[in-house]
Structure formats: C-alpha cells, structure tokens
C-alpha cells in the first residue's frame, strides 16, 4: 500500500497517526460514559413498555405503582408536550409530532417495546416492580411489520392521518429523482436486467446502551448523556418538556458508539420530567434488550432495480423503486436509498423513487449512510449481472460509466472534482484483484465480488473556540461528540497551523453552555466542518499573534510572518528582531493587549460526495451453507486523511458492519410481532474472528472546497459491502441471492434446490 499523499507532504502533523487523545482513558476504563455519572440523592427511572405491536391505549392506571414504597413519581404521555398531528414542527430531519409519540406512546402503542409509562424510584429494582403494577387497558389491534405487507391494500393501518393518493395508507412519504427519459433509454439498450431485492432491519449495534442522568433544580435542567449531539439533546428535550433552551444544559458524555442511532433521544425527556416531578437527579439506562427492541434499527427494504446497457457497456437507463420500512412513525431514509443508488454513474436517463412505509416496529433511526447501502445493494448486484451478460469485467463496466467532474447526478448536483475513478483504478491495480482466488479444495468454494458506492456527506453548523493559554499551550473547544477521531484530527490541524507540537494542543468537547451551536455528529460532517471552524479560528489567533509581535517590535503587523511556531519580522525588517515563539507571546499577552483566543461559527458548505470501491473474497462451505469473507479490500477517496489511523478505522468499521448486514444480522420477529432475538447471542453481529484483516486503501483526491481537502469518510464504507459480498457469493456458487442476510439455512436451502433441479 502506498503512503497517502498527506503522509508524503511537508506537513508535520496533518496526515500523522498521532496518539489518540481519548485512547488511554478508554483502554484503562476511565473514560466516563453516560451511565458512569452519579449524583448525591440520585434515584432511578425505568420504562414500562408495550407488550403488543399495535394497541389502542384505553386507559392507564398508575395508582398502585405510586403507592409502592420507594416510588417517587410516575409519568405517562400526558406529561410530555403534545404536538398536534396536523402541524409539522421540524428539528433537523426529525418531526416533533413523531418524536413526542416515539418517546412515549400517546393514542396508541405502535410496537412491542413502545414506552407507555415511566417510574422513578429509590432503586432500579423498585422502579422495575412499580412498572409491573401499572395497569394499562389495551385494545389490541391487527399489526403489520414487513414493508411489503404494510403496503398491501388490506394491511392494518397504523395512522388514520396518513393518506397516500387520497386513501388511508401506511405509505407516509415519497421521494422521486428524474433525469432524462428512462423509456427512451431502455429502448436503446442491448441488455436490460431487472431484479427485486429484500433486506431485513439491522441494528447499529453500538456497544454502549442509551443512558442519561438528569438533574432539575430551581427549574433548570442539567443533562448528562451519550449522544451524537448535545445541542440536539437540548433542543429535543426543550421541545418535549416545554423548558426553554437556556434552562437546559446538555453535557456530552464520552460515547460508546452511535453509528447514527444516537442522533435522536429516548430517555432524556423522560428523566427530565421525572426529575422535575421529584426534585431529585434521575438516572436511566436501557438494557441491551431495550436497545434492540426500542431504539434504532435501520429499515428493512424491498427494492426493484432495472438497468439497461449497450453492448459496449454504456449504461443508458436506470430505474429504481426503494420501499423502506420506517417503523412506528414516518422517517425512513428514502433520500439515501433513492439518491445514492445511481449516483456513482454517469447515466443519461434515471428514474429513482423511494417510499417511506410505516409499520409496527421501533421507529427507524439513522444508521451510517442512512438508506444508501439499500439502494447500492440493488444497483450493484444488477450491475454485476449486466457485466456478466456483456462478458465484461465488472470493474471495467464501472470505470466506463463512472461519474467524474462535471457529471450530473440524478439527485441534483453536478459533481466537482471527485475521486471515484481513482478508487476503481486502485482496485484494478491492487494486489487483491490481481491475485487469483484459491482453488476449490476440500469441498470449499471461493468467489470474488466487487461493488462501488456513494454517500452525500454533509456540512452544516459548527462552532470552535481556540484559546492560547498563559504557558503557550492551546485549548480548542468544539461542539461535537467525538465518535470517529475528530479530537485527534482537530489537534493535528491546529498544531500544523500554529507550528507547534500536537501534544501542546488539547481538544475538548464543550457542553451546550460553553460553546456555540454545533449540529449533530452525523453525515460524515464533523472532521470536515470542525476543521473549517478550527482553521478559521486558528488563523485569527495567528493574526492576533502577529499583531502582538508587531506591537512589541513597534513595526507594522503586515511586516510580521508566522512560521514554524514563531512570529518573525519580514520584508524590510527581516532579521532585525529575534523571533518570538508562541510561548513568549503568550507570556506577554496581558501587557500586549490581553488574552489571545478566537472563535468561529459557520454554516459550512462544500462537503462533496464520497466514493468507494470494495473487493471481497468469500469462502463457502456448501454442505453447511456458511459463507465467510476471507479477504476484503476497500478503496476510498477521502479527500485528505488528517489522521490516517482513524480514517482506516472508519473504513474497516463500515466494511465489517456491511458484511454483518450481508451475511448474518437481522431482526427476527415471532408470530406475535415481538422481536425474537433482542440480544447479541442471536442478533449475529460479526465477531473479530469472523473477519479477516480488512484492508483499507486511502485515496486522496483533495476536496477543492475545503482548507485541508477533507471529504467525509465515515459513511461511504458501509455502502458497497452488501453488494460486494452478494456478488462474491454468486461468483463462488453460481447461485444468486436476492435477499439478505445470506444466512446458512437460506444458502443451504438454495443449494439443495439447485442440486435437485
């Protein structure tokens, strides 16, 4: 593997694998996660959840629970601000009409696990017992979970207020992208392939369950919780409890994974209300089972994709329909599915449609490149068949049609300089693609598959404050929980710009009372956006430092340059004064004008899309139906790797989650509509020994709109694996699977059916 460009440049810190500022704390168990905070007088909150997937709540009697010794308060949806159904109130992509019903069932319980009441008591055990004493009178209703079932005309309807084409429906929304004329395009094609695909809901699988501690005192709330955005926690808690934002201080804990699943809240408003009622700090923590039943997962899906190509491989038309399961309330990631499915390719005629379908399972939460893996799965599997029909190498087919600078994507943008072609060429030339597969031995079969993928990436609001300390060290405060290495990256950038050792720069995550508004850690935006605000703040600090030096030297500030961590006289004055280091200037700050520091707040733009190409080898044991990945290489244009170690971590993490999605992870419901595998034993996320070393090849085509050339990194890697693994399994077996996961019973059944035929 070649060293990435940034490692070969003159940079001292950008592109270096600097020691992780959070590493030692995490591996020694000292990092304080959400459940680690305690307070004197603290009591425990617990949630009573609906056992039914769909039921009208006739009444709730909490009197027995309230009388249990040790119980301090009981709450229901009545205690939460009600947002009427006829008026949308948006916070980012979340509608408060849905959130107020998601955190606690109002008219109806919409999934097994839906909160219906919560209790605060002296201990978790008493709170648990009190939950059992709450009497809920349910009118059990017919239910539907599967997305195709939910779209049928006779399906049980979840919400009377949702209408599609004038009729009550579970279809809550639609998105459509059109480019050219697909009918005309298909008419020109020599090969047309159309296939349907099905996937199961999968959970983000973060190791840290949701937890919070909330203390309300004198009408003001302090919230400690693990989330992907303390400002989101504050705003949503404010909406749902009626407190103004200035009376809520949200303090982000160290976060044990989120992958999108912590971009919404579940417990914080409940704990806040319980604390307000009791005057005591209230702690709440989900069990793993609750996490599986009631948070996340992403959508299950049903998709249909049709692609037409000419003999020479030119793709002339592509059409896709993507139906995504939203769960109890609207909001599935159809934008990602319909928008990303065809974005990697220059196709003249595209028609891409997404449907948002509600059904009786927990409300969908964002999951790494939300929706994009589903769109990509269908497209990239069909492309594999197109390549086969044309007798063309699948990477060559992609290269021929690859989006480049100037390509118009169906979802809107005209791409600027992007690095998609480089990822395909990288795959073609990689040792992995050039190495022949192992020969079938011992009954084992081998196959190779490839797939490419795209994710939008995002900019948005970020704030940073850079302060020079009296001893010349630096503290940087940003407003984003760090889930992928943003502290390390920010330290590298600030150290680089100031020309000082990165160990002199500490990067902290401010709570909502100490740093300006910063949007969610999501959309692969944090290193991108915080690099921009940190850069601009640092540049302003450097301007100030030059002014201070000019003042000391009594020369014009324009005659001072900042080089290698010191102010130097330049121009006519060059060499006339001894340079002044950051530490020297810091020591004289009081005398030269006061403290030195600067902050910047921006709504960042210019986060251009990210592309990747993945190569996957599988080994299949056809007698057992087990497919295992034995070699995996991802090649991704990251713009610029500020901290390559973290970038590789993102690429490997996304690939492993995608492989789990393809082979083993799925939500399994029993015949009563209840999740049957709400734990890591039966929800089969891959373990380390299931995967080979996942090779990550960093490709750097700098983003021209970013000061360091950064593109988002964290989400693209989960987009191609579903198709890469599927295509590899086909290559091994000669049998195609059109649904995920390709679990052993499913694979064995297909192989037996084939051998009988």
């Amino acid at each position, binding site marked *: 593997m070649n060293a990435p460009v940034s490692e070969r440049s003159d940079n001292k810190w950008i592109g270096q694998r600097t020691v992780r500022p959070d590493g030692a704390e995490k591996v020694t168990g000292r990092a304080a996660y959400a459940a680690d905070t305690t307070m004197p007088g603290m009591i425990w909150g617990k949630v009573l959840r609906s056992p039914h997937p769909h039921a009208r709540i006739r009444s709730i009697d909490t009197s027995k629970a309230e009388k249990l010794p040790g119980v301090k308060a009981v709450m229901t949806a009545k205690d939460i601000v009600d947002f009427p159904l006829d008026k949308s109130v948006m916070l980012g992509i979340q509608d408060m009409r849905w959130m107020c019903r998601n955190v606690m069932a109002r008219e109806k319980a919409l999934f097994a696990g839906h909160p219906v009441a919560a209790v605060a008591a002296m201990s978790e*055990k008493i709170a648990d017992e009190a939950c059992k004493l709450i009497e809920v009178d349910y009118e059990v209703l017919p239910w539907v979970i599967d997305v195709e079932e939910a779209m049928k005309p006779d399906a049980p309807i979840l919400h009377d207020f949702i209408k599609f084409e004038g009729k009550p429906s579970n279809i809550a929304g639609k998105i459509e992208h059109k480019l050219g004329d697909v009918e005309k395009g298909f008419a020109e094609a020599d090969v047309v392939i159309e296939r349907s695909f099905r996937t199961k809901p999968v959970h983000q699988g973060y190791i840290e369950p949701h937890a919070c501690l909330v203390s309300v005192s004198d009408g003001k709330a302090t919230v400690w919780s693990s989330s992907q955005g303390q400002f989101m926690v504050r705003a949503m808690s404010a909406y749902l409890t009626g407190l103004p934002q200035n009376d809520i201080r949200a303090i982000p804990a160290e976060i044990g994974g989120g992958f999108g699943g912590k971009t919404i809240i579940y417990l914080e408003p409940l704990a806040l209300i319980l604390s307000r009622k009791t005057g005591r700090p209230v702690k709440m923590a989900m069990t793993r089972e609750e996490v599986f039943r009631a948070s996340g997962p992403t959508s299950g899906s049903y998709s249909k994709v049709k692609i037409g190509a000419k003999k020479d491989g030119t793709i002339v038309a592509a059409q896709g329909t993507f139906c995504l399961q939203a769960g109890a309330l609207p909001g599935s990631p159809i934008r990602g599915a319909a928008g990303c499915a065809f974005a990697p390719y220059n196709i003249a005629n595209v028609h891409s449609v997404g449907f948002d379908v509600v059904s009786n399972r927990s409300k969908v939460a964002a999951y790494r490149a939300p929706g994009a893996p589903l769109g990509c799965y269908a497209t990239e599997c069909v492309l594999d068949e197109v390549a086969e029909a044309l007798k063309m190498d699948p990477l060559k087919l992609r290269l021929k049609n690859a989006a480049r600078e100037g390509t118009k994507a169906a979802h809107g943008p005209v791409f600027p300089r992007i690095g998609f072609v480089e990822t395909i060429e990288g795959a073609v030339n990689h040792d992995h693609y050039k190495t022949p597969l192992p020969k079938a031995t011992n009954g084992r079969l081998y196959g190779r598959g490839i797939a490419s993928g795209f994710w939008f990436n995002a900019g948005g609001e970020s704030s940073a404050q850079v302060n020079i300390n009296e001893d010349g060290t630096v503290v940087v405060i940003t407003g984003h929980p760090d889930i992928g290495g943003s502290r390390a990256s920010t330290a590298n950038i600030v150290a680089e710009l100031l020309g000082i050792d990165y160990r002199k720069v500490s990067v902290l995550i401010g709570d909502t009372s100490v740093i300006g508004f910063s949007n969610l850690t999501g959309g692969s935006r944090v290193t991108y956006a915080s690099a921009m605000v940190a850069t601009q703040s640092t540049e302003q600090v450097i301007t100030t430092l030059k002014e201070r030096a000019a003042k000391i030297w009594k020369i014009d500030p324009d005659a001072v340059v900042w080089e290698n961590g010191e102010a130097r006289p330049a121009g006519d004055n060059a060499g006339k004064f001894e340079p002044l280091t950051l530490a020297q200037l810091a020591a004289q700050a009081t005398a030269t004008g006061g403290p030195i520091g600067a902050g910047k707040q921006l709504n960042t733009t210019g986060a251009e899309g990210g592309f990747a190409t993945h190569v996957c080898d599988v080994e299949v044991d056809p*007698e*057992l*139906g*087990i497919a*295992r990945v034995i070699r995996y290489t991802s090649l991704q244009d990251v713009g610029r790797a500020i901290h390559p170690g973290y970038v590789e971590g993102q690429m490997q993490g996304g690939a492993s989650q995608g492989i789990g999605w393809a082979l*083993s992870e799925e939500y*399994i419901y029993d015949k009563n509509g209840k999740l*049957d*595998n709400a734990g890591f*034993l*039966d929800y*089969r996320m*891959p*373990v380390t*020994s*299931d995967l080979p070393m996942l090779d990550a090849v960093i490709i750097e085509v700098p983003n021209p709109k970013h000061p360091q050339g950064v593109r988002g990194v964290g989400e693209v890697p989960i987009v191609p694996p579903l198709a890469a693994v599927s295509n590899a399994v086909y290559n091994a077996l000669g049998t195609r699977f059109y649904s995920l996961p390709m*679990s*052993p*019973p499913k694979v*064995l*059944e297909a192989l*037996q059916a084939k051998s009988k035929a």
Partner: protein
Amino acid sequence: MTEVQYVAPGTLDEAVRVFASASGAARILAGGTDLLVQMRSGAVRPGLIVDIKKIAEMTAIEQGADGSFRIGAAVSGAALREHAKLKAIWPGVVEAANLIGSTQIQGRASAGGNLCNASPAGDSVPAMVAAAATVTVQGPNGRRQLAVEKVPAGPGRTTLAKGEIVVSFTLPPRPKGSGDAYLRMIPRTEMDIAVVGCGVSLTLDKGTCTAARVGLGAVAPTVLLVEDAAKALIGSKLDAAALDKAANACRAACRPIDDKRGTIAYRTQIAGVLLKRAATIAAERAGRS
C-alpha cells in the same frame, strides 16, 4: 427485596446437607457462567447459592490405574485444556469443553454446569455422551452412578433429585486405536450457540471400526445418544456408504424445532454432515493413537 444467601462449603457432605435442606429455591454455583446470567435476567431467583469450587474432589482431574479419568464436575474448561494426558486421550471431550464461550468464560465454565444447565445445545454434553462418560451424583441418600445421557430431562430440566449434586464425570479406560471428536455448526466462528453439535468416539482395529458412540446436540429437547448411527459405523471401514448410513441415522434421530437459530430442515441436514466430518476426524485420531 429478595436476599440471596451464599455458602461455599469445603466438603461435599456439607454441600449436600445445606443444598438439600434449603427451604426455598437453591442453586449450585460452579463457574456461574449460566447461573449469574440467568439471575441477572430474572429467569431464576435463588434464595441460596452453594458454591462447590472449594470442594477438592470437584475441581480435580485424576487418572485411575486402569486408564480411566475422573473429572470433577466444577473443573473449568481452561483446566481441562491444560491437562496434557487427558487432552491426548480424549481430544474430542476437551475440544468440546473448550468451545464454550471465550477465554474469559473458559476460566470459569465447567462441564458439570454445562450438563446441569440442561440446554440441548450444551457443547460438552454430546462429546461426553459419545465418550460413554458416567456421572457420579451425591445426594441426601448417598452416591449413585448414571450414564451422562440420563441426566438431562428436557430444556433446563434434569433428572437429579432434590439435593443431588453432580460430583464428577468418569471417562472409561481407552482401548488402543481409539479417537474422539466434536464439531458444532455455528453461524459465527465463536461466541455463539450450537445450531447442531455432534460428538463421535470410536475404536479402530486394522481400519475396521469395532466400537462407536455418537452424541447429537441441539436437535431434540435433550442431547441424544444415536445408537443407530453407531451401529452403522461398527463393523465398517468407515467407507462412504457406512458414513452415509450413519449420517442418515443421525438425521432420522433428529426431532428439532424451527426457531431463530435454524430451521428443522437445516438442523436435520447438518446433523448428518457433522456426523461424517466428526467421524472422519475421530478415525484419523484413532489411527494415530
């Protein structure tokens, strides 16, 4: 709030006495890797816990003059692995016990706990069944011996009487030319539960199988001893026809359920596949012994 009383007697007699005389629900604690998980989830709420790890007999491995082995019921998987002689003679039993959990779990988990937890999917049980292990049980009425396959009664249930404790496993003397093996099918590579488990123990004389036993896990309410499969192997040279016949006998013995871990069809098919593979490994080991 329920109080849990914990005792750790130093002798078996004392353990049996407190265990048998407990008024409410009492539980033996070996490694606790099932028990503590079940207590945390609320599935069991014992009033008394009797830790047996302080009893010498229950944590020892001894080889008798006749070559038999006595393995204390509370011996951990890690201790089994460390016993070179046991591992050389009963590689299948040891590999089965070592499949349980992870390194951390191995430091605690015992074959006694695996058996008494009575999961049809317990990994060490089919290997013990194939090995013709007997267990020694001590209760208020003294000691008795029974075949290992007689202990499980159904998922989570055993045939042990109130107050009875499994003391040890006895593995019989091993004729020359013997080998055993255990294989399980799990979707992951570790940290998973057997969808099917198969233990085979056999003895070869000049390539002909003179004795065989087959244990099957996770395909019925209890671990099964599949005598028809053994019959198919005995007298054969373990040729393809004999292996096919034994595999079909295993499939015929299956009474599995359809669940989130596997379908009836899948489990039944795999039982035969694992039989063939385990028998092949056992035969290869027998050839070397």
